[in-house]
């Protein structure tokens, strides 16, 4: 048999054998082991509330509420729901996903360049929205009396990489705590206590940054004061 014929036969056999071993046995075995050993993690750390799935602990979500129009139905614009941030909840980082923020069926970067006018405009728009959200509509003053553009932490206005960042920085949470505490009638100490409780530490004590899990924090707030007020 000529060498190239031998090689061809072996190649075809090898592709079939390896496809079965590495493409079926290996991933299915890992999936099986994970399902048995770490069922919560393997299925995305789902959080249920009253038997209803309200999110995954590690997937960021939008805490904006649908705007109810004059006809009593949620308003829509170009086929998408019109929403506005709910001041009772801590808000997640800006997200560049299509079909609404934090679309976990289609993660994406913003892909805005460092020297792009679009990046600057997006930042400016997010800054404006952040300042507006953290202003008390009754008194027309900031909930956090020291809040200015220069004090806004970058994570609050720069869009995340995945578009699904479940966490915000502590600085961002502390600013929003003024608003959430006032709106919910809680003391700031209580809210800051919850922030500390849901802050993840650095890996091994040094890797990465601390972050506050927004979904867990908001659920804890609801448990404290009820979902409606």
């Amino acid at each position: 048999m000529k060498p190239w014929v031998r090689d061809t036969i072996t190649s075809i056999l090898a592709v079939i054998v390896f496809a079965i071993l590495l493409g079926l046995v290996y991933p299915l075995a890992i999936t099986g082991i994970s399902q048995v050993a770490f069922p919560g993690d393997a299925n995305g750390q789902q959080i249920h509330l009253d038997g209803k799935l309200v999110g995954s602990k590690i997937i960021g979500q939008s805490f904006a509420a649908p705007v109810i129009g004059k006809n009593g139905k949620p308003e829509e614009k170009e086929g998408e729901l019109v929403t506005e941030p709910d001041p009772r909840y801590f808000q997640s980082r800006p997200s560049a996903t299509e079909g609404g923020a934090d679309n976990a069926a289609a993660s994406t970067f913003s892909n805005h360049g460092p020297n792009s006018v679009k990046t600057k405009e997006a930042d400016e728009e997010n800054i404006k929205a952040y300042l507006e959200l953290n202003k008390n509509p009754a008194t027309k003053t900031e909930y956090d009396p020291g809040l200015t553009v220069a004090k806004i932490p970058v994570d609050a206005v720069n869009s995340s990489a995945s578009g699904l960042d479940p966490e915000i920085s502590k600085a961002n949470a502390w600013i929003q705590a003024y608003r959430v505490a006032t709106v919910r009638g809680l003391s700031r100490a209580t809210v800051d206590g919850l922030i500390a409780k849901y802050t993840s530490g650095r890996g091994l004590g040094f890797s990465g940054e601390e972050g506050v899990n927004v979904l867990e924090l908001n659920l804890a707030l609801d448990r404290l004061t009820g979902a409606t007020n």
Partner: protein
Amino acid sequence: MTFAGWFTIVAFVVVLTVLAFPLGSYMARVYTGERVIFSPIFAGPERFLYRILRVDEQRGQDWKAYAKSLIIFSLAGWIFLYIVLRTQDAFFVPHGLNPLAYHSAPADVVFNVTSSFMTNTNWQYYSGETTMSYLSQMIGLTVQNWLSAGVGIVVAAALVRGIISRSGKSIGNFWQDMVRTILYVLAPLSVLSAIVLASQGVIANLSNYLTVHTITGLEQKIAMGPVAGQLAIKMLGTNGGGFFNTNSAHPFENPTQFTNFFEMLIVLIIPAALIFMYGRMTSNRRQGYAIYATVMFMFLGAVIVAYIAEAHGSPAQHAAGLHTGVISGSGGGNMEGKEQRFGIAGSALFDVITTVTSCGAVNSAIESFTGIGGAVPFANLSASEVIFGGVGTGLYSILLYVLLAVFIGGLMVGRTPEWLGKKLEAREIKLAGLGILITPLAALFCTALATASKSGRASIAEVATSAKLGIHTPQAFSETFYAYLSQANNNGSAFAGYTGFIQPNAGNLGSHGISFADVLGGFDMIFARYAPILFALAVAGALAGKRVTPAGLGTMRTDNGTFVVLLIGVIILVGALTFFPALLLGPIVQGLTGHLY
């Protein structure tokens, strides 16, 4: 910049070196056929595989036979993957493994993806969760993650055998090397890593996508999938193709601060171990350390620049009025396209690691890196993946540079260049020179073609707000250049705005490819992968036949500080002379001027 950030970088280097050293010794034993700790477990399966594959593992191959086996095997893998991806929605695919009933991607896109995964590039014009079925991810893409990594490693092993061979022709047996690589090296590491990752929150299931009703009354769909297994080999094999579109930025692929550190480690561990393996197999450990020092020095340079640049923030942020310094409770910096849990240091380090190797996974958007920060991945790629490099590819590429450095050093001192007792002659230097220049040639040729043609410019995403400038901005050039540079280096990271796939709806309904970008990129990857492999194997063949002469007084030493400096000089000189003009037009001009487009 923070203390924890710098500490992460130092800790990473220490842990990596401590783990890579024993792994290198282990791999040296695997490739010289000695007994290793896993022999009792895998010797049986190994023999069984040889039998069903009809391999005579005892028979040595010369470099041409070795290369033939490698090419035919790769071709078979290519055809298989192409068929899998094109029949994604065929009748024989069980519904559970394609729960969202995704159609196949168009032929030109699949050509690109197939070439990409076969060449260890994992350049992705598609987005995993909106394009691929679970079956395609597993039996298609995961399999090539293993096999392409294996091909890279065996070429490195064969080259080292050629170097140490005492006047023979054989450089090993390709099939034996492949089987042993998969069983003894990749399998234990992958299974272990996958379980560690799964225990930390990486998902592993075959469920349908979840539908969530949020507490504010919105609906959220969450993509699922068998991620953990693919993720482990994606990192270990320096493949880098994400299960999800945003790769290792996606919380399901990289859930915590710890997994980020762990994923960085498993990217570099095999490339680092291979250098120690080389030292051990050539019985010249000091030379292994010299090469390790060379690449580590260049690696640290890249990390430091990237970290400082990203911590400084971007011109767009500053123009918007943001302050990017460290404040209490926030690390500051350029957080556009970065995740809170990784921060600036964790993102800069990760993306440097995956661009010095041919991994190309990202945990943050390289397109949104600052000018100088983004110039670092460019520079890493411009060094042709020798700073650790991909599994195997890194070692054989830097050995070609070592050859060149020995030759240049020999010319400078006026002696016949000698390396590990073997005289280097015209043939080896020609082959090494060609092997080094192929990748830059492919990258620059494709970039020129894509920049100069209308069909090439169709892929550009970053359009300036001023109509006069349009796509004639540094960022648009960077996107194009990076695309072909990354594909030529088989890296796979991207300035991700650049696209070859128009997909208006998830599920591929009404989707079409940009044929120019798909086809050009596909050939770019194939050419720049297999031509250097052939040159490396030819060098192995040429060296294998040479007799060893004992080192004399006049032999230039290749294991001391002087040689490290010479080697760094040669790498930087070749890379800089080839790429600097192009780099100036893209990232550097943005970094230096701070002008907004």
